[in-house]
């Protein structure tokens, strides 16, 4: 664990500072979008399609408009007058805001009702009559690729099939040769089902257009307010919206996890309606709309193969994947990475050869493919490599821990260039796995498992030794819609030595108000209690790409340190002026500059700040502030080893996670308490898809998991008490050696649990179970093997 360099009063890095944002939340005084109530505000509700694919024959708004309090019904035709019925997605695909001809998935927005209150708006939705003519539905992405499948995107003139993109990475010939030469090869198909982030706050906005000033303010559940402002300016420039007149405010956000990165049609309709009507308009979706229409994650059909020598040395990895993107490619990947960072799929292993392919496919399902607390498809990659590693262990009859130890990239090989082109910054994989094995008592558990097996009891131990890739990213490769993925911080030190720091990111619960203040405290010695952190208002915060993909600490956090260091440089000159010495004679220790060899002669950052406004040197500009736009030289590569212990009930097939040990390495730690909180939450969002969550569809494209009745978010009852520990391997290129931590656990946990379940059943010949591992799935397996009680 990192030992703090600062006192508890300063509370720099390494202190478990209590969160600065909590006093308002524990009093119910947070300010979320639905809490905003503006004078004259109207409410919007949305008519959604019951069909997965249908022609719209007519929309009759007459009855709705007769309801007292219903002011308008907006359809695709309304928006078409302003050419706002289509919008670009973050992947430069196109998406209907409201349809004029046909609907492409169930729960698609069809029309919007504007009314004086939310109940009347809902009455209006009931009264809008839409006449549909159902069209053939394509749900299965494999069938969508069949030449006989109907072409879904008839809006794209030259589109002759349902393939969105083909992506590949690696050396195919070398990989094929390694497979041909291998002693052992294993192959496994696995499906990572469609899931949904289901943040407890759904999405919504209050759009407020002021006709007099021409200024549009949109309070919005967004993780990326600056990018949204630019997108609004680019797509609505033709109707007079100009970027300096657009203000996006992301207030308190009730959980994001990636689901609040995309621009959904609801935001655009509410904004258009506010511009046309000239009044503030609130739209807040309900839970079913949220689950059914907002961006999903995963939906990856993976075919994985692993080649090895007899002794278990891995020699090559080959993967072919079909990615179901739904109606449009609305994933939120960096533009040069249509399959995200899936190419991290070689994981923690020194794999000399690898080749991976992904084909993106259109189907009649809600669009998306965004992350679910994950850095652009890393979860899919980690699940694939960690699962197939266990398949290999089973094939070789080797202990999965031993197989991992044998193949880990050795600590001395960092920085390590992977077969698919990444340069891993730092790592010590054996140390993390050893620590996890000690904590869980691995040898003892294996003995217990053998004893239980002899008695017919089912118990399994599963390992996942993951490597993540986060902190996008270096601007040479990473952009979204052309916007480079740097991030920013602006710090102003006030005359009395207190500071305000503004960032281009946006916390959704990660605790930025605390951790960013601690970064500034560490660098400047100003107590974190006196560093006010602000984000999310595009009128005041410096431009940044936002918070997702564990990028806040690697990018904006780094910008915070760099801006503080610029301030320190100026502070040094002021201190030299005050102490009447050369800046070269000064040394910095937390919070003050002292004359070398005369520690009694010093000036604190507070003295210096006061002088910056009252007694600054002639020829120097007054004030003490700086801004940094930080462009990271590389991504960061957090890692860890997780071990799950599960017991399976032979009567019900239920899997109980008895213990779960998580050893994480996210480099240097800003706030250990917050890091543990991030790991706990991430682990629970890993347990969720492993055992419970799936958005499924029937053959007609009806969503069968579209409410909290069917979409099972873990409760406190299913969630075990997590056991966490750390190793610390700093990132060599990050200003303070941090790597990012918000998502490691989400991707590390599912394969550990899946591997534990398979391990429990391996003696029955079971080699793989797709997630979510529901009691029904396990019970059917047990029944097949004659073990169900």
């Amino acid at each position: 664990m990192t030992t703090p360099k600062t006192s508890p009063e300063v509370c720099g890095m390494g202190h478990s500072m209590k969160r600065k944002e909590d006093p308002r939340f524990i009093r119910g005084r947070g300010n979320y979008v639905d809490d905003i109530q503006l004078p004259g505000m109207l409410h919007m509700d949305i008519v959604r399609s019951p069909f997965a694919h249908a022609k719209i024959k007519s929309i009759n708004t007459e009855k709705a408009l007769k309801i007292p309090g219903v002011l308008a019904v907006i359809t695709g035709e309304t928006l078409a007058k302003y050419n706002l019925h289509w919008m670009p997605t973050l992947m430069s695909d196109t998406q209907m805001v409201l349809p004029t001809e046909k609907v492409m998935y169930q729960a698609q927005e069809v029309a919007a009702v504007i009314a004086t209150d939310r109940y009347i708006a809902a009455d209006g939705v009931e009264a809008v009559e839409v006449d549909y003519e159902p069209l053939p539905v394509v749900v299965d992405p494999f069938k969508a690729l069949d030449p006989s499948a109907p072409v879904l995107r008839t809006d794209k003139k030259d589109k002759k099939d349902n393939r969105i993109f083909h992506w590949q990475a690696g050396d195919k010939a070398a990989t094929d040769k390694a497979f041909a030469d291998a002693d052992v090869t294993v192959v496994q198909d696995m499906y990572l089902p469609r899931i949904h982030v289901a943040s407890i706050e759904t999405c919504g906005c209050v759009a407020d257009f002021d006709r007099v000033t021409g200024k549009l303010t949109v309070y919005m559940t967004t993780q990326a307010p600056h990018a949204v402002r630019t997108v609004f300016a680019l797509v609505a420039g033709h109707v007079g919206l100009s970027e300096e007149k657009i203000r996006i405010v992301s207030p308190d956000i009730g959980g994001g996890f990636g689901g609040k990165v995309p621009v959904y049609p609801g935001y655009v309709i509410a904004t258009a309606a506010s511009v046309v009507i000239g009044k503030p308009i609130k739209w807040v979706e309900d839970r079913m709309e949220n689950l059914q229409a907002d961006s999903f994650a995963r939906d990856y059909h993976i075919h994985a193969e692993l080649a090895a020598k007899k002794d278990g040395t891995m020699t090559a990895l080959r993967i072919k994947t079909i990615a179901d993107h739904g109606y449009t490619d609305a994933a939120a990947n960096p533009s040069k990475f249509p399959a995200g960072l899936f190419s991290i799929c070689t994981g923690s292993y020194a794999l000399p050869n690898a080749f991976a392919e992904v084909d993106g496919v259109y189907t009649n399902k809600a669009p998306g493919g965004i992350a679910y607390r994950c850095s652009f498809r890393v979860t899919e990659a980690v699940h694939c490599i960690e699962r197939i590693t266990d398949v290999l262990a089973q094939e070789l009859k080797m202990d999965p821990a031993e197989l991992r130890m044998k193949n880990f990239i050795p600590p001395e090989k960092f920085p390590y260039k992977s077969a698919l082109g990444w340069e891993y910054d730092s790592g010590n994989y054996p140390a993390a796995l050893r620590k996890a094995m000690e904590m869980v008592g691995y040898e003892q558990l294996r003995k217990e498992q053998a004893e239980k097996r002899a008695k017919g009891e089912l118990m399994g131990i599963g390992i996942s030794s993951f490597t993540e890739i986060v902190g996008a990213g270096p601007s040479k490769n990473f952009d979204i819609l052309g916007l480079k993925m740097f991030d920013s911080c602006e710090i102003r030190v006030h005359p009395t030595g207190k500071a305000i720091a503004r960032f281009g990111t946006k916390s959704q619960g990660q605790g930025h108000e605390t951790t960013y203040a601690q970064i500034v405290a560490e660098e400047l010695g100003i107590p974190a209690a006196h560093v006010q952190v602000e984000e999310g208002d595009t009128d005041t915060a410096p431009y940044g790409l936002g918070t997702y993909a564990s990028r806040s600490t690697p990018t904006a956090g780094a910008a915070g340190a760099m801006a503080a260091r610029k301030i320190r440089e100026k502070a040094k000159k002021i201190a030299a002026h005050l102490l009447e010495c050369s800046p070269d004679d000064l040394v910095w220790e937390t919070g003050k500059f002292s004359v070398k060899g005369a520690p009694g002669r010093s000036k604190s950052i507070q003295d210096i700040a006061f002088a910056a406004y009252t007694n600054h040197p002639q020829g120097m500009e007054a004030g003490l502030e700086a801004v940094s736009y930080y462009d990271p030289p590389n991504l960061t590569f957090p890692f860890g080893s997780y071990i799950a212990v599960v017991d399976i009930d032979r009567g019900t097939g239920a899997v109980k996670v008895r213990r779960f040990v998580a050893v994480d390495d996210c480099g240097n730690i800003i706030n250990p308490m917050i890091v543990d909180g991030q790991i706990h939450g991430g682990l629970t969002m890993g347990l969720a898809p492993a055992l419970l969550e799936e958005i499924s569809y029937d053959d007609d494209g009806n969503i069968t998991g579209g409410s909290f009745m069917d979409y099972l978010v873990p409760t406190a009852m299913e969630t075990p008490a997590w056991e966490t520990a750390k190793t610390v391997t700093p990132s060599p290129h990050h200003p303070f050696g941090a790597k990012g931590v918000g998502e490691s656990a989400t991707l590390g946990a599912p394969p550990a649990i899946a591997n534990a379940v398979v391990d429990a059943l391996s003696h029955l010949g079971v080699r793989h179970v797709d997630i979510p591992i529901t009691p029904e799935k396990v019970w059917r397996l047990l029944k097949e093997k004659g073990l169900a009680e």
Partner: protein
Amino acid sequence: MTMATHEIRMTVNGAPHQLRVESRLLLVHLLRENLRLTGTHIGCDTTHCGACTVLLDGEPVKSCTVLAVQADGAEIATVEGLEQNGKLHPIQEAFWDKHGLQCGYCTPGMMMTGYALLARDKQPSETDIREAISGNLCRCTGYSNIVKAIQSAAERLRQQ
């Protein structure tokens, strides 16, 4: 469409209120929109998530599925009523100390459920706590620190 209205009275956090409401108005909307007590949140509208939990005559209820007229004559307690005379309630202090919240959205409902549990059981076991909050979903914390916060609040209350 005209909806019948009703005159109702209730006490919210000790303060009496008299309101005329539509039959269909939900208690959560009355609290949030009529009384502007926005600490009670809406997460699902279907009684699953518990973000809207308030106490109705001391019992935790999900105010998204209680009609305002059903609360006629009742005493309602919301998160805004926990702090008394500028002093945080032990459950608020414990949630803060133990990092029992992240985005803060489920927090008011969690604290009200925890408050009700501790009113009837001064020394709940971990299982008791997990069972009590099993109708309150949290997506951020993984529940571990919420359980610790409620245990810590129990201890603080016992020492009072």
